[in-house]
């Protein structure tokens, strides 16, 4: 059920704990799993090879005594390496000392340039109070100009366009002049999607760059891109020397290995992450969170950050103890739900728990359902909450009546709870990053 990397590694390294350190054989076995995980995450094959040899160096002889089990320990090493590789601290756009700052958006067809253009415009307005203009230089795609007009205005930007009959290079130059004369802080130029192997269009992009002398050229990359990401990035780097990357469609469940590939091969930082279709779903890129995601670990850091305010370390230890001793009852279940509920909309958070997203998909919890669940549990006696297997026949009926639901709902809740209890039991048996330990590490 849990196919997280840590679990797989732990299965591979079962006799390590006794020994205390990792031998070469252990590390080789671990590297095989890691290689598979990274390939599955769409990290480029070449990058995987060089990365795993770098990690192997660190892992050999690594001390595995401590709160984290060997599997978790290796994952931590890998995660740290990945984070480092993808750029350490989050990076920024470079702004011109004399406005306007000119940004050019480039990338393949369908990568999300136009949406990203509007989002960046809105982001700069909100975060920096900049006055922003966007320029419509995609004259090929049907209704592309219309699209930018609509989303550009939604973002509060001025839209510069000349329809689809002008040469994009001329439009770009004209837009730059206009932005200058109108005193705009930032000009973002949207361009048409183009294949990195389309010589004519790549030359056009180079000409746009020559004409406007941008301060930032951003390559827009779809998070679901596979092995080809490297080819695309290499070519764009050669022709237009882009300065940074915007990763889009991160709200999907693509692991996003392309991020690592692009950074590793071109050395260019990923600056922004687009996480939805709405204009405000746009943020600075966090390499550490991406590392976790690539490893299939979910957004653990975000959860930990949020959890720190809502969750006591002691409670975490107590919960762990209860899970280990199979004392986890419906009261604890309700308690957990209450804790999580305090953190924010349930759906998005459940997805953040490593490995839990998929498993809990069936156990869908929205606010209304939470109220129902709470009502049902509160209609149970303490003994029933500790031993839900007692709940049959007349008890079920009583609980249903007391909570204003029906027998079916009561049955369903208990079934879901049993499922969740099984899942959480394996969590407690070390098959997942230990939340308490991770929190301690994070401090």
């Amino acid at each position, binding site marked *: 059920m849990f196919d997280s990397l840590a679990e797989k590694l732990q299965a591979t390294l079962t006799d390590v704990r006794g020994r205390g350190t990792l031998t070469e054989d252990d590390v080789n076995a671990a590297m095989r799993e890691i290689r*598979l995980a990274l*390939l*599955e*995450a*769409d990290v480029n*094959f070449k990058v995987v090879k060089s990365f795993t040899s770098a990690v192997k160096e660190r892992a050999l002889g690594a001390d595995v005594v401590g709160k984290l089990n060997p599997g978790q320990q290796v994952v931590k090493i890998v995660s740290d390496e990945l984070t480092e590789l993808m750029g350490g601290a989050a990076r920024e756009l470079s702004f011109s000392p004399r406005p306007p700052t000119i940004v050019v958006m480039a990338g*393949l*067809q*369908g*990568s*999300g340039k136009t949406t990203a253009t509007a989002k960046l415009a809105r982001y700069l307005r909100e975060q920096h109070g900049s006055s922003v203009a966007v320029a419509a230089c995609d004259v*090929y*795609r*049907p*209704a*592309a100009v*219309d*699209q930018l*007009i*609509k*989303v550009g205005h*939604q973002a509060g930007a001025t839209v510069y366009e000349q329809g689809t009959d002008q040469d994009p290079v001329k439009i770009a130059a004209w837009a730059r002049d206009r932005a200058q004369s109108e005193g705009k802080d930032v000009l973002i130029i949207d361009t048409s999607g183009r*294949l*990195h*192997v389309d010589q004519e269009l790549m030359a056009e992009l180079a000409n746009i760059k020559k004409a406007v002398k941008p301060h930032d050229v951003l390559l827009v990359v*779809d998070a*679901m*891109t*596979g*092995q*080809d*990401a490297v*080819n*695309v990035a290499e070519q764009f780097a050669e022709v237009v020397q882009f300065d940074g990357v915007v990763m889009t*469609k991160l*709200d*999907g*469940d*693509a*692991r996003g*290995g*392309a991020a690592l590939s692009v950074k590793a091969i071109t050395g260019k930082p990923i600056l922004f992450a687009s996480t939805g*279709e709405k204009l405000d779903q746009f943020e600075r890129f966090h390499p550490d969170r991406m590392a976790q995601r690539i490893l299939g670990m979910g957004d653990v850091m975000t959860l930990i950050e949020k959890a720190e305010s809502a969750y006591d370390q002691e409670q975490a230890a107590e919960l762990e103890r209860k899970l280990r001793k199979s004392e986890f009852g419906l009261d604890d279940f309700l308690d957990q739900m209450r804790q999580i509920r305090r953190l924010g909309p349930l759906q998005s958070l459940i997805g953040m728990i490593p490995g839990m997203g998929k498993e809990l998909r069936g156990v869908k919890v929205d606010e209304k359902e939470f109220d129902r669940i709470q009502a049902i549990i509160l209609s149970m006696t303490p003994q029933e909450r500790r031993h839900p297997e007692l709940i049959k026949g007349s008890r079920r009926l009583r609980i249903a009546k007391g909570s204003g639901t029906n027998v079916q709902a009561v049955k369903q809740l208990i079934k879901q709870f049993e499922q969740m209890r099984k899942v959480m039991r394996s969590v407690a048996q070390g098959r997942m990053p230990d939340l308490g330990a991770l929190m301690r590490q994070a401090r």
Partner: protein
Amino acid sequence: MARDWRDLFIVDGAGPAPEPEDAPETQERRRGMFRRLRENLRKTRQALTSEIQATLFEDLSDETWERLEEALIYADVGARTTAQVVEQLEREATEGNISGGEALTARLTELLADIARSDDDRIDLRPQPTVILVAGVNGTGKTTTIGKLAWHLSKELGKSVVLGAGDTFRAAGVEQLEVWAQRAGASFVKGPPDTDPGAVAYDTIAAARRDGADVVIIDTAGRLHTQDDLMAELGKVRRVIAKQIPEAPHETLLTVDATTGQNGLRQAQLFSEAVDISGLVLTKLDGTAKGGIALAISHELGIPVKLIGIGEQLEDLRPFDANDFARALVTQ
């Protein structure tokens, strides 16, 4: 020989539909064009074959299998399917059933083509009207594909086509499809702004029936397979269509970008759960991506690949050919 449109589409009559009546000059020009196309493809195929031989199977050592594995991974075939293919080929080679670069190349291509091919890889155009629903993740090329498909249906088979602007969410999504309808010579139906996509589907089919159109193609908004509410909306559109015409939609196509990595499998899986996908369109194959994920989708989910997109112009659509695809997968 590569599949052509008459292999892909099922039309009325015992054999393939008769060529639409053309002036002799047009017929001659067309024949010349096809001849040239076949010539080009044959050259490419020969070049590809010798390339595979040269790079992968120049000598048979442990490195051969590693090289092959690498080539398949690079093509986004995925670790699992790659392992299966390499294992099988290695076994056959070791057991002495196959020897020599040429034979290995042929067998490799065969294996890959078998995985890529499906029984149910045709599009049935006999229902009147035939309703095609097109879905997919944002940016995968739904609207462009619909334009191309409409054009080919009209040009190759003389069918009359109506397009339904079911993307009611995307800024200028309706306008985009309208341009394609004009280019392809298809009729066009849209609803008022922010209207329900199911309503547009309904109106489009109603218009098709009224006007006696042959094919209806419904566009939908791009959506991520992880957005449950949007997947539910897609299911709803399908139900609206099914209520109107019991067997419809007769074809539900999923567009998948050829550059997509392993996530493509998730996409296909979840879209299938929402609306029962009957065929895949592998788009943007004119880049350097090999689209190997289509192999995994076909192999693991049993969804047939039916069409490939190879550019942004009206003509740039082809019936999927498993042999050509397999050969292209492992060439550098």
